[in-house]
């Protein structure tokens, strides 16, 4: 498998197209180049968001004012939330690794609509730019939190319109990506690749695509209503005009809960690729993993109300939402069990991506279990809007999607760049990062149980000790991540040349040279076997 078959065809990195220099990137419709565009923009936004996070933690290291005013703090967690959710974890794996690998993994030359794909990236950058513009124009930055709850969001003097419109545009970008992937998967699988011979990462992208397509419009229209309410004074959600602020919450979470599965499903897909490769073993219970992805996407649509348990919904609604919240944990459980079962009787090659996968499983479980505590009515009444929730979602969003993102980055790095990285540094970075992570967010569970509300600029003396630990964790983590990123960047220059299949993977991307040639495949492969065939 590892022989380089084709030397005539230049790699996508070297290919000279119509345009030169930067234009050969920002005008390229090649799915691989677009993926790289996404990767760089996304990392920039991630660094911005993470720095905001660190600054917030430094503010919280002691009660009272430490480094910023309340106004700044409120603006920071708003921007941090918007960037991290809409610009980092929702596009995250699909836009970067999905774009790069989806066509390759299903044996296609590109996505179905290459130009639309490039357009999505432009929407993406425009959306984030609008959000950033909102920080520096008008009467002060938006300060509503990423949830834009009515009626505060049209009472505040903060500069909401560009931020809300930016989120709208980001939603559009997300829809287009999902649409593109759905059509690609329906129409462009290589001959012989039946649905059940498709690898798991494309499967999760497929499930995600439907969620993106069918949930995002709801937030789109909701954000438009907020804009209309602020500019035209149409009464939609303002109680003084007869509107119902709770209806806003319903609509917001009708999107934003499914959105958390947009974030996690592709992450689960990446983990489902990494585990069999390093176990040198076919995945355990392929059909069940596929089914559970679809189940998550479907049931996940109907549990949004668990974000509103203290808002005074009807008892029936509380009952249904809480029950379904527990039901949706089952497909996740199935996945976890199957992944662990795959390691049974395997032959495990302990490489960096596999460590990330193990780390993912651990923190994902913690995040998921804390989700169960929040899904239960009696406990959520106490824990809602405390730092317990903050801990839950950092564990599962950052720990789940974030870990999977870094895992995927280390897994596909050789394929994407054609270079190997130094795994000793990579592992060191991971260990520092992991210990920082646990100190930073683990402590927040206890702060939340004690009753420390979230979005608090200043807090009571009783919460001080916990916050010191948590803030120090953030600093440690910052270092860990710097090590990881610097290691990868320096490997771009100094890394050894990567063979086409460094890990012994069996999916299609490992059958072509690293980095892949412009057209991916010299000849479209004909598929006869399942994706993880190690026999």
């Amino acid at each position, binding site marked *: 498998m590892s022989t380089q078959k084709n030397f005539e065809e230049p790699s996508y990195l070297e290919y000279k197209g119509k345009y030169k220099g930067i234009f050969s990137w920002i005008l390229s419709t090649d799915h691989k180049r677009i993926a790289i565009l996404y990767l760089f923009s996304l990392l920039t936004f991630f660094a911005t968001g993470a720095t905001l996070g660190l600054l917030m933690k430094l503010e919280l290291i002691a009660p009272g004012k430490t480094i910023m005013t309340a106004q700044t703090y409120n603006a920071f967690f708003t921007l941090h939330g918007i960037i991290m959710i809409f610009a980092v974890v929702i596009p995250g794996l699909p836009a970067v690794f999905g774009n790069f690998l989806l066509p390759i993994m299903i044996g296609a030359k590109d996505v179905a609509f290459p130009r639309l794909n490039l357009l999505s990236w432009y929407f993406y950058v425009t959306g984030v730019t609008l959000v950033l513009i909102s920080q520096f124009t008008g009467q002060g930055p938006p300060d509503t939190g990423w949830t834009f709850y009515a009626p505060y969001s049209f009472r505040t003097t903060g500069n909401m319109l560009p931020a809300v419109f930016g989120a709208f545009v980001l939603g559009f970008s997300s829809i287009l990506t999902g649409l593109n992937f759905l059509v690609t998967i329906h129409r462009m699988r290589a001959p012989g690749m039946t649905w059940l011979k498709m690898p798991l990462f494309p499967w999760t992208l497929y499930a995600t695509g439907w969620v993106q397509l*069918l949930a995002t419009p*709801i937030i789109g229209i909701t954000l438009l209503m907020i804009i209309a309410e602020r500019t035209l004074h149409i009464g939609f959600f303002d109680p003084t005009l007869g509107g119902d602020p*709770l209806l806003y919450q*319903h609509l917001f979470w*009708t999107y934003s809960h499914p959105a958390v599965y947009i974030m996690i499903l592709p992450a689960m897909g990446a983990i489902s690729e990494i585990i069999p490769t390093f176990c040198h073993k076919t995945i355990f219970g392929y059909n069940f993993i596929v089914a559970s992805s679809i189940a998550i996407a479907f049931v996940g*649509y*109907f549990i949004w*109300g668990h974000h509103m348990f203290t808002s005074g*919904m*009807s*008892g*029936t*609604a509380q009952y*249904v939402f809480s029950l379904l919240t527990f039901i949706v944990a089952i497909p996740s459980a199935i996945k976890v069990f199957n992944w662990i079962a795959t390691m049974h009787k395997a032959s495990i090659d302990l490489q960096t991506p596999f460590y990330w996968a193990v780390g993912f499983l651990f923190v994902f479980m913690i995040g998921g279990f804390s989700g169960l505590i929040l899904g239960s009515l009696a406990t959520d009444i106490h824990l809602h809007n405390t730092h317990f929730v903050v801990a839950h979602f950092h564990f599962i969003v950052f720990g789940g999607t974030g870990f999977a993102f870094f895992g995927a980055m280390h897994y596909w790095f050789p394929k994407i760049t054609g270079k190997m990285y130094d795994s000793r540094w990579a592992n060191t970075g991971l260990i520092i990062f992991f210990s920082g992570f646990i100190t930073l967010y683990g402590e927040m569970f206890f702060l939340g149980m004690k009753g420390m509300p979230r979005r608090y600029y200043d807090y009571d003396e009783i919460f001080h000790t916990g916050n010191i630990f948590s803030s120090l964790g953030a600093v440690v983590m910052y270092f860990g991540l710097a090590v990881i990123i610097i290691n990868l960047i320096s490997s771009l220059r100094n890394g050894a040349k990567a063979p086409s299949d460094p890990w012994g993977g069996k999916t299609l991307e490992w059958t072509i040279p690293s980095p892949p040639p412009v057209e991916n495949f010299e000849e479209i492969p004909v598929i006869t076997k399942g994706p993880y065939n190690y026999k």
Partner: protein
Amino acid sequence: MKSIENEKNHIIPYKTFLYVLAVLIALTLTSVTLTQISLGALTVTIALIIAAIKSSFVLRIFMHLKFENKMFSRAVIGVIMLLCAVITVTLLDYLNR
């Protein structure tokens, strides 16, 4: 997936469209007259049922779903059901307060 290729050239005669148009206009007028006379709570139901019938004509004939791959009609039905389910779940809250 192969079967679609031959259906690509399915040509619907002009006449069919005109018949459908006649039916649609008739339904519109029925709906207008029915709702003008007071039927109480039934009005909403009747108006919505007629709208649903009208839209099924538009979907099936004008939008070719009848002649297209089954996949499309299934997806359309799925999406409509999803939307109804979302509305129902939202109303679970409002109707029981």
